[in-house]
């Protein structure tokens, strides 16, 4: 069994071979650029700062269509550009970038398998030079909200047998032992536990020791054995929606499930909402 959409995943070697390809823009998506991109990055890669560039600075929301167009224009991207994303923190934020860029319907967005960690592990070139791009005027499509779940949809899905929830957080978060690490006080919740009926499949179950994705057969067994099957609509969630973007990518592109959505409100919304049902073993 092959990946359903192998074209969305590129190897580190593919990236090395396309570093100077004018049709390819490599973007490093970092949660904390000062501990990643600013210390060194792939030659020619632009920086996408997850906090500043992909999130609205006032509302809790992903970037708007206008902000996306500005970002793409700043990165010298056209609708025909092949975007290759990689990043820090095990590629979670690159996966979140992939999800948001697909919401705004950029046609060709790919993820570098193994991310920054694998690139460095292989001893490949890292530079500090920041590239400059000729700005473009980018026009995005309307948002594809079929990729994103909001709380009302999540609550209505609780009553449906054709919807499955996958909780990709750690076992301690799933059981409610913790809601967030102490250093992430702003990601804590009033209540611990999980969405009723959710299957616990931590995000890292999908990768190998070198951070590259497991085979399609292994992934199909991993999710299928826990009831996350393609005949259902699947809602993935974690704490703020970045680890679940990684799982969203697996289910949608590597396994080709027809309906997979990311609930980026995740536990920071659900666990702080009054009156919603919670399961806690």
């Amino acid at each position, binding site marked *: 069994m092959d990946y359903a959409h192998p074209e969305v995943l590129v190897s580190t070697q593919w990236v090395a071979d396309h570093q100077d390809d004018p049709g390819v823009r490599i973007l490093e998506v970092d949660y904390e650029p000062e*501990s*990643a991109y600013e*210390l060194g990055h792939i030659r020619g890669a632009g920086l996408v700062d997850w906090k500043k560039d992909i999130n609205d600075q006032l509302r809790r929301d992903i970037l708007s269509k206008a902000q996306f167009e500005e970002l793409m224009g700043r990165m010298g991207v056209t609708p025909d550009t092949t975007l290759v994303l990689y990043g820090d923190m095990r590629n979670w934020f690159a996966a979140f970038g992939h999800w948001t860029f697909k919401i705004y319907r950029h046609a060709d967005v790919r993820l570098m398998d193994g991310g920054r960690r694998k690139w460095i592990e292989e001893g490949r070139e890292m530079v500090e030079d920041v590239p400059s791009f000729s700005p473009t005027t980018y026009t995005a499509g309307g948002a594809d909200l079929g990729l994103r779940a909001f709380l009302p949809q999540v609550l209505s899905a609780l009553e449906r047998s054709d919807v499955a929830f996958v909780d990709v*957080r750690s076992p301690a*978060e799933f059981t409610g032992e913790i809601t967030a690490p102490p250093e*992430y006080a702003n990601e804590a919740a009033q209540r611990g536990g999980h969405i009723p009926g959710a299957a616990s499949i931590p995000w890292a179950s999908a990768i190998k020791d070198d951070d590259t994705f497991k085979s399609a057969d292994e992934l199909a067994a991993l999710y299928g054995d826990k009831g996350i099957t393609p005949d259902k609509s699947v809602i993935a969630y974690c*704490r703020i929606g970045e680890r679940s973007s990684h799982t969203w990518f697996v289910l949608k592109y590597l396994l080709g499930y027809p309906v997979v959505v990311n609930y980026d409100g995740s536990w920071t919304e659900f666990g702080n909402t009054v009156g919603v049902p919670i399961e806690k073993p």
Partner: protein
Amino acid sequence: MADSKVARTLDLTSSEEECGDTALALLRRTMKELAPGEVLEVQSTVAEHAFVVRAWARKTGRPILGDRTEGKMTTILVEQTPDG
């Protein structure tokens, strides 16, 4: 690699397994607890962590007193500076 001045050891190997602090955040926090001249021994089996430690030490002017890799484990000795 002399280790007579090692004041603390920090193993970054399991950092970033879950959504918590980055390796650099852990490194900076630990380094702040050291007095000038004291040495932090940083270990990890992850090459990305070793890259971060070396680059951060160089950028912030902290001397690296030792850097060795045995098997997959890299051990780097970083000295705290007066303005640390």
